[in-house]
């Protein structure tokens, strides 16, 4: 049954054409905004040239090489070397800060341990939280220098989510209402397995569609950004990225990207369930399409403007919130659960699964009735 539901849902020329077109659009969008050229991003291109000399070397050696190159530069006319001088300056600053990195971590570790000691007796939650922070800062070290500073460009790229959501809505509107409009549901509902079992199978087919779409676009984004920025390592820790250096995350970049993908996927799955619920409730596919769009835009607005006070808690139910999953993962947001500091990301994941179970039950209920 699943095989046929998958075929009905997305094994057709229209869906393939839609996916191919939007994938191409996504690629063009990335290259238009991110591909470094002599006119758009000369600093980065110069950095890449300099980077080849220090690639994979330990920080101290890198600093010496760049320092040496900067000295050599002073012998040349300034108008020809301004760009290189700026790049060397910036790199030296970063390398100096990297040399200070072990000391800074040690300080942060000691500070966290001190706080943990203070809270040992009267606040178990803060005690556990600071112990965790101390553990994380204590484990950090950077052995070599790699080009990873532009990873946040990939992490913050959210345009593909818009395209995926559009494809989810376009594919999902017909899942129930299309059959009602064509009359097929009359035959289906006169069969033994055409009720709850079929609704469940349709939901699974839809989730497979969502996973495939998300994976396809994630791979496409990864390849395009790799071509644009020529990242050098996925096995470096997240704190190797300059922008994330102070955040208490010790995962490798690859693991962080996978986690980020999974949290975003969870949000997309919940959105797909909402579209399916609308498809069960409304018989006209065009109306389902319109209502789904309004619903997603509403959720996005609430995520953007309702992220204060009680809105912060309500937004945990908002699937659009999960599309910005990197914030949940990067910032050690925790909740006090029986004295233990439980990660907000873990709780949010639980909430998303609970939402999906609730929506599944609602879909089966309305489909059967």
């Amino acid at each position, binding site marked *: 049954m699943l095989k046929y539901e998958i075929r009905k849902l997305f094994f057709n020329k229209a869906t393939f054409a839609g996916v191919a077109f939007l994938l191409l659009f996504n690629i063009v969008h990335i290259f238009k905004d991110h591909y470094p050229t002599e006119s758009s991003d000369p600093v980065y291109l110069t950095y890449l040239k300099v980077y080849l000399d220090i690639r994979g070397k330990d920080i101290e050696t890198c600093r010496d090489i760049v320092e040496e190159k900067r000295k050599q530069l002073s012998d040349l006319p300034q108008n020809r070397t301004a760009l290189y001088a700026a790049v060397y300056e910036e790199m030296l600053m970063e390398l100096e800060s990297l040399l200070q990195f072990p000391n800074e971590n040690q300080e942060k570790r000691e500070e966290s341990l001190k706080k943990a000691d203070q809270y040992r007796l009267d606040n178990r939650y803060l005690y556990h939280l600071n112990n965790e922070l101390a553990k994380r800062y204590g484990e950090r070290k950077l052995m070599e220098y790699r080009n990873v500073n532009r990873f946040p460009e990939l992490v913050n790229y959210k345009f593909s989510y818009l395209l995926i959501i559009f494809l989810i809505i376009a594919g999902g509107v017909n899942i129930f209402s299309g059959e009602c409009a064509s*009359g097929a549901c*009359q035959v289906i509902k*006169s069969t*033994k397995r055409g009720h709850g079992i079929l609704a469940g199978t349709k939901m699974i087919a839809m989730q497979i569609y969502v996973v495939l779409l998300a994976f396809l676009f994630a791979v496409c984004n990864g390849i395009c950004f790799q071509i644009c920025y020529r990242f050098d390592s996925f096995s470096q820790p997240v704190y190797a990225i300059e922008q994330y250096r102070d955040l208490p995350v010790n995962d490798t970049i690859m693991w962080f990207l996978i986690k980020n993908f999974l949290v975003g996927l969870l949000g997309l799955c919940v959105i797909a369930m909402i579209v399916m619920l609308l498809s069960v409730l409304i018989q006209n596919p065009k109306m389902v399409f319109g209502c789904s769009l309004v619903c997603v835009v509403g959720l996005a607005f609430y995520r953007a403007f309702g992220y204060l006070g009680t809105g912060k808690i309500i937004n945990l139910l908002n699937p659009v919130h999960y599309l910005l999953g990197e914030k949940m993962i990067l910032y050690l947001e925790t909740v006090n659960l029986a004295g233990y500091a439980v990660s907000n990301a873990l709780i949010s994941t639980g909430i998303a699964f609970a939402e999906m179970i609730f929506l599944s039950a609602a879909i089966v209920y309305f489909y059967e009735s």
Partner: protein
Amino acid sequence: MVLKLNNISKRYGKKTVLNQICLELHNGIYGLLGPNGAGKTTLISIITGMLNATEGEILCDGISTKKLKKRYFDYIGYMPQYPGYYNNFTGYEMLDYYAVLKGLKKQERKVKIPEILELVNLKDYSGEKIRVYSGGMKQRLGIGTALLNDPAVLILDEPTAGLDPKERIRFRDLISKVSSHKIIIIATHIVSDVESIADRILLLNHGELIRNGTVEELCEEMEGLVWPIETAGQTKLENVYLYHFRS
């Protein structure tokens, strides 16, 4: 097989769509006739289990359908007026899909589907996409779909709508072929389609069953009440239909 409808009523708010329908159906072909809005589709929806009656119950060989629950669908084969074909499926795939929905196991499907394709004369086109099928072929495929679980009750809603005369004759032959040991209910506006094959005619108007009898019985009732005009080319049953639904 006996299908008994006990005081079936359906109301939407204050509007009564079906009123106290009592019927006992035995094996044979029944023509369900009535004008638009008579309640034919509602009655069919209740018999197929898609809709719950406001009052009354249906007994299947003496057992209430409420008791049978989903097992009741094993007795039912249904082809609505617009069955909603999946144009990117082949004829074989469409039958296989519905066979899965009807709970047929893989081995059963392997035997049953070729049989059905042979029966509805679509064996040579089973690998073709449905989008290339003619109206008549689609209708035969729809009947094939309804027959997959070898149902004891076969319900066909406006099965000949949009078919040319040749396909209508083919349809009648097909129904006659499968009619043994089945209750077949054909809801239609086209009186001539059921006149020659129906064992009994059910006349439904304003949600009430106004007549239930053989073609001969209904025609006899009309003796002296109807004066057929030869030039109109109407059959006897059409005269009965026009008499009852003249308003």
